[in-house]
């Protein structure tokens, strides 16, 4: 057994986290910063963080992930990291020539209280930021929230650093996609195009972390939201913030600073959340939903109705990030599946409350926890007490899936051992079909594996 020391009995823990269902802020900020074209993320802390974050994103995307670090030493940890950051900015602009640098922090620079705004101002005043180049930043203390919080903070940092207000309204909608895959961001752009809606989307990692092999390494790949497009976000009609945890702060900032009203929506996973997204986008962009969407939606409904016998009543455990788990849970309920155990390491009271409300009718016994010690160890114990038919989450779930022999669908961050997430969307109606394909695939593979020869089916 891979997790042989996990007992079935759940004991109360007050201090110990085992097998977390989250990681720390800066990796989220790094991912968000990669979603700006020509941007070099920079980690203001000791260099270990930067290496770990780059490595995790690289393992997830199998693509280059570039970032600089202030490389704190013990001296700078005591006396402050200003000199390190000034030198880093000068070096990065000289050697690597980015259009902009996006600085985030770590628990180190946050604990010592480095004032990033002041250091960036000094760098600019001292001529360390070349003409026409920019430095944007946000604070990402690792001891607050999770990687999602870091993503949210950098989204706000991007808006603060780049969005402008010209006073001339633009016929466009801001989309803050939340922490989703580049394939999902691509699909959102395509949904908007099919709707005929003008959008500005940031961050946008499509074309940055899923780059083609052409024989040429591009330090700043072709993709990413353009600085000049982000600049117009202050003139947009409305902001659609997908995911409360990842996107609401930034939307609030755009509202407060530029009077761009916002609406918080779920990330459009599955049928209902996609319905809401398509309607909200069409309504904000003042476009009619084209006929073709009836067919697009209908195909997802068709697959669900065709295959419901394999899904109905199946118990599911899932873990990951709150913005993803909420619409996924709703989708499972639409499929008449039964979510039984849900954990997210990311704190926020709204999460457990909404899951409980959502499941009240169809899955009233759902166990849900989030925040500190809502970890995969707890999830595993819950599964031992109430076995499930399907497990959904990032790669770390494979240890539970193997020990407990549970069909397993990889979804979320990080996925270190399969491809697909960078290339095939799981948002929108088409993404919903892919989610179904994945779930049905593992469920039916299991039926094939376990069926006695007499009951082994050709047609399913």
């Amino acid at each position, binding site marked *: 057994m*891979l997790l042989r*020391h996990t*007992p079935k009995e759940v*004991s109360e*823990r*007050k*201090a*110990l*986290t*085992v097998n*977390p269902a*989250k*990681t*720390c*802020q800066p990796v989220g900020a790094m991912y968000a910063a990669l979603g700006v074209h020509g941007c070099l993320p920079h980690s203001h*802390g*000791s*260099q*270990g*963080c930067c*290496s*770990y*974050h*780059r*490595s995790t994103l*690289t*393992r997830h995307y199998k693509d280059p992930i570039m*970032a*600089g*670090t202030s*490389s*704190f*030493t*013990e*001296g*700078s*940890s005591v006396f402050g990291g200003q000199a390190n950051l000034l*030198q*880093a*900015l000068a*070096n990065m602009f000289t*050697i*690597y020539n980015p259009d902009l640098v996006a600085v985030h922090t770590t*628990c*180190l620079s946050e*604990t*010592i209280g480095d004032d990033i705004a002041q250091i960036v101002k000094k760098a600019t005043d001292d001529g360390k930021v070349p003409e026409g180049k920019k430095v944007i930043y946000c604070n990402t*203390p*690792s*001891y607050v929230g999770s990687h999602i919080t870091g993503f949210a903070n950098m989204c706000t940092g991007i808006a603060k650093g780049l969005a402008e207000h010209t006073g001339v309204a633009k016929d466009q909608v801001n989309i803050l996609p939340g922490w989703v895959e580049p394939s999902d961001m691509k699909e959102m752009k395509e949904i908007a195009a099919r709707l005929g809606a003008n959008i500005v989307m940031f961050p946008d990692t499509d074309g940055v972390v899923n780059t083609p*092999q*052409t*024989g*040429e*390494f591009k330090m700043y790949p072709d993709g990413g939201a353009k600085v000049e497009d982000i600049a117009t976000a202050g003139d947009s009609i409305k902001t659609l913030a997908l995911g409360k945890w990842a996107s609401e702060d930034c939307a609030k900032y755009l509202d407060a600073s530029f009077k761009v009203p916002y609406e918080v929506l779920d990330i459009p996973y599955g049928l209902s959340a996609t319905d809401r997204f398509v309607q909200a986008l069409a309504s904000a962009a003042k476009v009619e939903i084209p006929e073709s969407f009836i067919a697009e939606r209908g195909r997802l409904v068709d697959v669900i109705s065709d295959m419901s016998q394999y899904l109905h009543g199946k118990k599911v455990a899932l873990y990951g990030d709150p913005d993803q788990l909420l619409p996924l849970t709703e989708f499972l309920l639409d499929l008449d599946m039964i979510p039984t155990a849900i954990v997210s*390491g990311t704190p926020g009271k709204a999460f457990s409350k909404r899951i409980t409300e959502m499941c009240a009718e169809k899955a009233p016994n759902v166990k849900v926890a989030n925040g*500190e010690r809502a970890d995969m*160890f707890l999830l595993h114990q819950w599964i031992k007490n109430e076995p499930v038919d399907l497990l959904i989450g990032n790669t*770390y779930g494979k*240890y539970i899936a193997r020990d407990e022999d549970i069909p397993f669908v990889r979804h979320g961050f990080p996925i270190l051992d399969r491809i697909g997430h960078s290339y095939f969307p799981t948002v929108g109606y088409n993404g919903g079909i892919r989610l179904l394909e994945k779930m049905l695939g593992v469920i039916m593979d299991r039926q094939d594996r376990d069926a006695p020869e007499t009951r082994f089916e050709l047609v399913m």
Partner: protein
Amino acid sequence: MSEEKKLPDPSGLKEEILAKYPPKIARKRSKAMVINDPELDQQIQSNVRTIPGIITQRGCTYAGCKGVVLGPTRDIVNLVHGPIGCSFYAWLTRRNQTDADEIVEGGANYMTYSFSTDMQDDNIVFGGEKKLAQAIQEAYDIFKPKAIGVFSTCPVGLIGDDVHAVSRQMKEKLGDCNVFGFSCEGYKGVSQSAGHHIANNQLFRHVIGLDDSQPEHKYNVNLLGEYNIGGDGFEIDRIFKKCGINIICTFSGNSTMDKFANSHMADLNLVMCHRSINYMAEMQETKFGIPWMKVNFIGAESTAKALRKVGEYFEDEALKARIEEVIAEEMPSVKERVAKARKVTEGKLAMLFVGGSRAHHYQELFSELGIKTVSAGYEFGHRDDYEGRKVLPTIKVDADSRNIEEIKVEKDETRYKPRASEEKLKALDEKGLEVSDYRGMMPDMADQSLIVDDISHWETEKLIDFYKPDIFCAGIKEKYVVQKSGIPLKQLHSYDYGGPYAGFEGAKNFYADIEKILSTSIWKKIKAPWLSHENDPCICAEYVA
């Protein structure tokens, strides 16, 4: 390496690289890039602070301590005191394999777990000692481990949590669990290296020597600095078993606390990764009288050489004969495999930029394949890893590494026992056995090869342009960067999820994997056909005609 094909002179390349840097940075980096002349005693700058913003591949002290040295020990609960990231990122990402029998002795194996105090902002403000003590208690209550190691991360040192005091109190309270702490905050030192040193010190202080039981077998050795990545240690175990050599403890692939505790009863220490574990070798020699020798099990010839060193050391004819038998048994299939691979690999060029030891070790495997190493370097090697231990007396510890503890070790009055006489050790050293010595990477590298310490991304790009190597060896962060330029990259940290590469079986695996990489068809199909014909004169001529 044959003289007829001299390597190209990289001095122009070096100038071009430095030209991009601001003058102060150029001066520093210049000293970290040496055009090798194995005949000369050249000095390389290493183990100095990383230049901010240069895009280094280095990690931190915590990674060197928890991730590298203690991570592979399967029956210790490694509790990370800090915010969640440090524990998350070191969770199963290094491929230290372990094998714990569930039936035997409970088969403790915590490798698949990530333990953390998950510090929150109120722990930063009010201190995290209480939470740490509580977490130790909970880990003990749930898992009943023999030992708990506590690893400090960046904020712990800054807010003044005393992990050692908490560990002492909890050890006393729990009674049957060895609890000890590591002050391996990420900002200490300049790289992973400081973490190795801290790990060595604390293992030595809290575990080594706790069990004086006499080993049952003959020819007792420890294998130091072998972390069983991809099963390397298992392959070495297999070979040693076949030869009749008994490994008391491997530091620290598939290790246990009990094996550490008994390791001072060995008669010889064999050092694989000099950088990470030479401290342990020195301390065990000083305190217990165990001599050490540098060995390399990467490469079939190196493996044979290492085995013969052990035979020479024990001066036992039966053992020597057995070793020769084993080599004779293992070699034919190795030779057969390498001959097949060489049809593809012969004459190719490699570059190696890996941690603190493999950039040297793997050159042996490449030379067995007929592949030349044109450039190499470490992330965090010290001068002795490059130039040999003879330079140790001249190394100055700079301000950034001065606070890494050097522990004072003295002869153990009761347990010190010189395993071999001074004369014998001297004689062995004269035979080339590298007794208490490591001669470093530079003497083994070709004339005019370029050696680069703590290579930056910019330097990597320029080196690739200049050498156009057939294969580049580094880690995950470099892998796709290099491959996007059309050059295959072999990861020599994770082995690209393959291995083992050590020993005889490992060599065969490596030959096969390199042969596979170099003959992968897709590299020839990177260009779209309509683009690749554009500049093709034959096709153009035909079209015009």
